[in-house]
């Protein structure tokens, strides 16, 4: 069975034989950089098509079906359109910050890719503080949005950015606490070790009720953090026309758009890693033969399957729910989600100490 780590191993071996170790490392870095950018482009295209398809399915309409077979090239055509559009900077805007903001949004999304384990032994950077790194970097994304809103010199943008700031900062807490639930159970911040700890069952099954609570809170919190409906108050097209990116056009808008989709992918990947076992196949305790059969499915398919299942959930929310009001949104976080997740973390700690989990 082919797997990513074999390919990576072959490339690594060849580079080290051909060049000295320093150059080999540099080339590896370049290759990884190119791969990440490629992955970005592919994910952007796939997720946009997927969103439109899911929307069409829920809304009883056709969706894109003209460009390419079954409309699969639609998002590629959209990209070309956005590339050739004029990138405008409004008069009175802070030009430097205005143009910098989309790149910061993109940069954050790129940095977040580093610790994610895409398949067995296939990770850009296997760092021992993976979880901490993810929560730290993801909180930087709010700077890009605030920058965009402030620099646009537009009242709608400013309000969208302020809402977004309040929202992202608040929901970081719940998301962080629910991530911590799994860290407490595993005893490790390393994402790869977290995946390995689920070899005898995913945490959502092993940790039963408290972890299911943590998982639900995680989904709600990350939906809010990525500014997706029903928590898309930063954009809220009926109230703020388009929120923080009202003044952006062409490729600068596309970068925000892409960053949003990549963020959705990343949070879903983290969720899948922590709660659904990442690339770990579906294993049940010590059923050796059953586990062995499950191992025949490549680990990358398990990982992407779980991630896309979560992405589908988040898309489903978007096309079903109406939007909350900003004060209701903050109430939900501070009065309900945060106390529940604080109590939940106590419960999980007790569970970890007393060994109540499987």
């Amino acid at each position, binding site marked *: 069975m082919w797997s990513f780590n074999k390919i990576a191993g072959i490339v690594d071996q060849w580079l080290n034989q051909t060049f000295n170790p320093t150059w080999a490392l540099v080339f590896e870095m370049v290759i990884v950089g190119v791969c990440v950018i490629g992955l970005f482009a592919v994910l952007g295209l796939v997720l946009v098509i997927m969103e439109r398809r899911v929307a069409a399915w829920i809304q*009883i309409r056709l969706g894109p079906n003209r460009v390419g077979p079954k409309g699969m090239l639609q998002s590629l055509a959209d990209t070309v359109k956005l590339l050739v559009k004029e990138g405008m900077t409004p008069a009175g805007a802070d030009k430097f910050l205005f143009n910098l903001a989309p790149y910061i949004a993109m940069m954050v999304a790129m940095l977040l890719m580093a610790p994610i384990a895409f398949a067995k032994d296939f990770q850009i950077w296997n760092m021992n503080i993976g979880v901490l790194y993810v929560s730290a970097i993801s909180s930087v994304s709010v700077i890009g949005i605030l920058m965009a809103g402030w620099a646009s010199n537009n009242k*709608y943008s400013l309000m969208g950015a302020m809402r977004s700031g309040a929202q992202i900062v608040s929901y970081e807490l719940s998301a962080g606490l629910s991530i911590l639930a799994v860290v407490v159970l595993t005893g490790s911040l390393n994402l790869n070790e977290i995946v390995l700890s689920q070899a005898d069952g995913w945490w959502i099954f092993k940790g039963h009720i408290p972890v299911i609570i943590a998982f639900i809170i995680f989904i709600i919190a990350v939906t809010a953090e990525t500014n997706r409906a029903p928590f898309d108050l930063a954009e809220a097209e*009926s*109230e*703020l*026309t388009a929120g923080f990116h009202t003044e952006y056009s062409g490729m600068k808008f596309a970068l925000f758009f892409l960053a949003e989709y990549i963020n959705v992918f990343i949070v879903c990947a983290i969720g899948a890693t922590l709660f659904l076992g990442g690339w770990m196949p579906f294993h049940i305790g010590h059923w050796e033969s059953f586990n062995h059969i499950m191992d025949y499915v490549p680990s990358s398919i398990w990982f992407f399957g779980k991630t896309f299942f979560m992405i589908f959930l988040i898309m489903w929310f978007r096309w079903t*729910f*109406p*939007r909350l009001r900003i004060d209701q949104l903050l109430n939900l976080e501070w009065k309900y989600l945060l106390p529940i997740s604080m109590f939940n973390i106590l419960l999980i700690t007790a569970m970890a100490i007393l060994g109540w989990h499987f």
Partner: protein
Amino acid sequence: MVEEIGTTTEGDLIINVGPQHPATHGVLHLVITLNGETIKKIEPHLGYIHRSIEKMCESLTYRQFIYVTSRMDYLSAHINNHACALCVEKGMQIEVPARAEVIRVLMDELTRIASHELWWGAMAMDLGAFTPFFHAFREREAINEIMEETCGARLTMNYMVPGGVMQDLHPDFQRKVKEFIILFKRKIDEYDELVTGNIIFQNRMKGIGYISPEDAIAYGCSGPVLRGSGVSCDVRKIYPYGIYGQLNFEEVLETAGDSFARYMIRIREMKQSIRIIEQLIDNIPEGDFVAKTKAVLKLPKGEFYTRVETARGEFGVYIVSEGGTTPYRIKFRSPGFSNLSALDHMARGSKLGDLVAMMGTLDLVIPDIDR
């Protein structure tokens, strides 16, 4: 800071919602004074699509001016036409054949359902839910097809003429309407599952945009907006026109006076409309569909006023005649204009996000406001 509400002070954020804003459904322009996200004051600026329809009507004959009214409240075209036809008939004292009366009521109620369908979808979209919009249009399409067959138009119908209706029903009319009734009864339960029962939706609607019965009367609100505050005002019940007096249906009333009450009024009203259609669809009397009238009508000297209940409220037609072939003066009393005037009163002190929800429940049609 309650005392500040209603005034503009230094440092307040003044934003323009509309004319091209997605939530203004056309060309409404609202100048909003905000303190943070709290609304202090709203000034609607009208006139963006003013076409001076009332002035235009003065140069059109009594048969012609009815066509113009379909272009005002284009979602209640039939009902507007009905009001105009009634006014001319009142002046000329024309007897309308029984068949025409039944056809008119059937068309009115189908129009009311179509209008409320569109309102339901658009309002859900104002709240950020896209899916209901498409679902509502699916059912509305069935009505549009029925209309297209009989009246030849899908939006601005011109079917009612003084003395009856322009032409007879399409042979498929009865069958298609019966099919629609079955479809609609199933779908309206789906609407409740998708939107009405949703906890986010209820939190957004309940207690928002409250208007007391006294204030609602004082602002001249009518239709679902006034009935949401618990005031009985259905023209079909209190001043029955056509054959509404003989029909069996309820006037829908809610007492909460908030956005959710206005929402529920329209949802329940659609069910009542279906009830009316069910009573009539099997009992369309045979006979003429239009009374014999002269080619050019001349109203006797005097003033005539008739009113009907459109999907948005009371629509009145006031004609001053000097005995000629064209009206001397015409004034339309449109429901949207009065309902909009209450928006400032409702919205003060609530959040910007609520404004959109409130505007949705007023069910504004801009050409109805800017005549």
